[in-house]
């Protein structure tokens, strides 16, 4: 494998789910399982309809463009991409090509891949409309127009990735960016992310910076999961390597990823490339993007995952691993931030979230928004723990009881079952036990030190587990030394 260097580029499409309406119509922009309920004359291209640009979608696209360190255009244009397909009601898609300048051009993204920070150049980033979705059956196909006109962002990278892991790490990074920026849920299960991948192989001994040394590019269309991206890249690298090893020539072509056979399949060659006959959409006058508006957008960019992670490590003193777990999903990080804001110690909150809560969510396959215990409920537990009312064992019990019964934790925290942290009381109990255990004390003094646990056990038995364990151990040590 070292003989060849793979150059991989991505076209990442992500639906913008966080606008009220679609990108060129007033239909609701919302994922629905009922087909054809968020539709209008515009989405279905009835004669006489006209597109009206959703300013919020433009704003969000410009925000992403800034995050990608792209340059933003002076004027916003749209173009028509003309082709016939049953999922495309108008017979053209309103999109942006690279000329005139789209929402963003020539940027750079830093992302984590394992323990390394990698960089990828962004060729362009644009805003367009999604097509309807098709369901194919044996002899018929169903068309669902809910998706037609949903704002869609397309990010085109330069072929800067060298492995499937890098490409997937980048996709994960971008998913997090879209979520943190409040632009999209970026949920692959809802089909919100779709990718085209291009792969070429070059002689690893040659200079990568010279495009003349690059190999012929093969494009793989419609890869709809991160796993698919990984598998299709690996498959393609293997296929092309084998071809080259056997003296074959790579043809420029478009292939598609077939989930079932886990392979790429030829779709069309370069000669059959579709001419989309782009031209500027005449129904949308070019729109001047003011410097003030751009500044306003720039100032509204929220804290992104990498910023939060840095904060958690530097300010809250968390481990890099825990910080990583917390920021992986924005909703979880938001939950964690709320806990800290409510006054729960940052490290304590981190332990609860990364261990108990994430564990519980994974076990139940739930999202944090469906989780019963809110940050303020969690605080009931951590407060009781801090003041010694609960032992950590009890705290966990309260946590699970609350989930099980859908009742606030405070219902399970009471004076009655509170931890005994009164030193006098504990001393009285411990003395009483010791007075009745002269044999054990003798044996202990004679060197059988593991009998220490016997005394702890007796105290716990006596208090039905409510004795403060730390204090108990201290007092037992003191008393044993005295006798």
């Amino acid at each position, binding site marked *: 494998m070292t003989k060849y260097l793979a150059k991989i580029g991505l076209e990442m499409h992500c639906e913008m789910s966080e606008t009220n309406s679609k990108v060129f119509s007033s239909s609701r922009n919302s994922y629905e399982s009922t087909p054809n309920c968020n539709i209008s004359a515009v989405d279905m291209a*009835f004669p*006489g309809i006209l597109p009206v640009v959703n300013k919020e979608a433009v704003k969000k696209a410009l925000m992403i463009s800034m995050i990608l360190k792209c340059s933003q255009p002076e004027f916003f244009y749209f173009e028509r991409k003309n082709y016939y397909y*049953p999922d495309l009601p*108008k017979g053209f898609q309103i999109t942006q090509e690279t000329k005139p300048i789209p929402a963003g051009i020539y940027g750079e993204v830093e992302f984590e891949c394992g323990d390394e920070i990698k960089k990828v150049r962004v060729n362009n980033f644009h805003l367009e409309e999604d097509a309807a979705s098709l369901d194919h059956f044996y002899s018929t196909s169903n068309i669902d127009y809910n998706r037609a006109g949903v704002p869609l962002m397309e990010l085109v990278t330069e072929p800067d990735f060298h492995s499937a892991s890098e490409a997937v790490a980048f996709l994960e990074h971008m998913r997090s960016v879209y979520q943190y920026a409040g632009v999209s849920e970026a949920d692959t299960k809802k089909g919100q992310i779709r990718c085209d991948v291009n792969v070429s192989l070059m002689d690893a001994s040659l200079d990568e910076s010279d495009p003349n040394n690059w190999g012929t590019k093969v494009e793989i269309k419609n890869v709809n999961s991160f796993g698919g991206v990984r598998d299709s890249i690996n498959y393609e690298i293997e296929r092309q390597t084998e071809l080259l090893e056997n003296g074959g020539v790579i043809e420029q072509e478009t292939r598609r990823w077939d989930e079932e056979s886990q392979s790429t399949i030829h779709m069309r060659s370069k000669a059959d490339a579709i*001419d989309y*006959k782009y*031209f500027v959409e005449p*129904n949308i006058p070019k729109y001047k993007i003011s410097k003030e508006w751009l500044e306003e957008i720039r100032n509204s960019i929220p804290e992104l995952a990498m910023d939060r992670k840095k904060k958690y490590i530097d300010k809250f003193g968390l481990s890099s691993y825990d910080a990583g777990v917390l920021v992986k999903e924005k909703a979880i990080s938001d939950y964690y931030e709320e806990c800290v804001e409510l006054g729960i110690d940052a490290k304590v909150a981190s332990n609860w979230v990364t261990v108990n809560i994430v564990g519980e969510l994974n076990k139940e396959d739930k999202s944090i928004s469906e989780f019963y215990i809110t940050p303020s409920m969690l605080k009931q537990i951590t407060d009781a723990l801090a003041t010694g009312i609960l032992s950590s064992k009890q705290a966990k019990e309260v946590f699970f009881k609350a989930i099980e019964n859908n009742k606030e934790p405070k219902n399970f925290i009471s004076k009655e079952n509170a931890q005994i942290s009164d030193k006098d009381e504990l001393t009285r109990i411990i003395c009483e036990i010791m007075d009745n255990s002269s044999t054990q004390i003798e044996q202990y003094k004679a060197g059988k030190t593991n009998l220490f646990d016997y005394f702890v056990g007796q105290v716990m038995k006596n208090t039905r587990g409510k004795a403060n364990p730390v204090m108990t151990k201290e007092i037992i040590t003191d008393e044993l030394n005295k006798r």
Partner: protein
Amino acid sequence: MKYMDKSIEELHEMLVKGDVTSDELVKESLERSHEIQDKCNAFVTILDDAKGCEVTDNLLSGIPYGVKDNYSTKGILSTGSSNTLKDYVPFFDATAIVNLNKAGAIKVNKTAMDEFGMGGTGTTGHTGVQLNPWDRTRICAGSSSGSAAAVAAGVYPYALGSDTGDSIRKPAAYCGIVGYKPTYGMISRYGLFPFASSLDHCGVLTRSVRDAAIVVNTMKGIDPNDMTSWDSSKMDLLGSCTGDVKGMKLCYVKEICDIENYPNASHELKEHLENFKKTIELARNIGMEVDEVSVDRKLLNAVFSVYRVIHSAEATSNMSNLTGIIFGPRGEGDNYIDMIKDHRTKGFSPLIKRRFVIGSYVLQKENQERYFKNAQRARRMIVDTWKNLYKKYDAVLCPVGVGPAKKFTELDLKQDINTMSLDEHLQVGNFGGFPSITIPNGFVSNLPVGINITGNCYEDEKVLNIAYALESAMDYKGQVVKEVK
């Protein structure tokens, strides 16, 4: 009594006074519709169950009118005169129709047209050809052929049209009436079946300039559904018709209007241009200055090609929604490609198919720079030339067409390359989105001819006032075909 020969203001006064009821007007208009349908084939649909309505302060309330069949009308068949939409009943009204509904205007028919507005002869619609009520052996011109014939024949005082090249202003001239398309975006295009979006305009055909002002006053307005529309609420088109034009400066283009340009001119062309000269004299007599100006002939000769390239390109894209999948008759075939092919093969007239081929050709990657982009550049140069004229002049005057309406038998004759710029110059009004109005200015061979006044964008008030002043100085205001033979 023929009410439908009267102007909107006359009818309104009679309605208010109670001399006539809205129901009576509708009844007469429907009777005339059937008569003109028999004689001129002017309509796709006659709305026999149309009823009168309450008369309000609005000048249009209770008065019948016609709608070109490329306006989307809720619950009423809207075909664009195409087989691809032969049974299409929309579920929404075009914005212009909504505005007219609010005013209490009453639709009585949908007028036939050249298929989707393409073609200038009134011969390509799916319900057959429209005959000129002045002489039924002649064309009305198009594409607003049915609207022009109906207004000229006194079916009602006005009918809606649309204008991408000259589709309101040429049939108006050939039918001896007024045809006005305001500045691009003054009337929302939402609900107008698109032909070439950057050139398409809504507008109206009437028998007087004041009527045109009244109707467009009602149709216009900024529309959240059309991003190219703009706020014209401060513009009072009717109020602008004062007739005071003293000191206004007009010009006409020598390379278009001078008979010397046409050594082989027909008798009719000579008469037409003579008549144009008379109107110029008239303009001077009522206090306007009129200069002859010169425009590069190369630029003028490019107008037709520029128009053809741009409209074909936009049309082929705009009409890609006509697949027979969501609406329109479903085509036959084993897969979607064959179904779409079948629908479009059966649905479109040869003229449209030809333009789709041209449109696709000029947009192709390898041709786009040479044809489409160059056409856009030339369009810009032509518009700039006209804008330059408007720095000095209030409007440009031009004769419409090369004479009166052609006979159907003459249509197959090859277009005379020498008179092309005379025949096609109205398209400049669409290139620039200029306000442009045609009014009748006399007769040639006993058939009406017209003159066109085109001004700068947003100067509709000025253009209408000039037209109103000229109209008032001539005898053709409100003319109706006396008897359709």
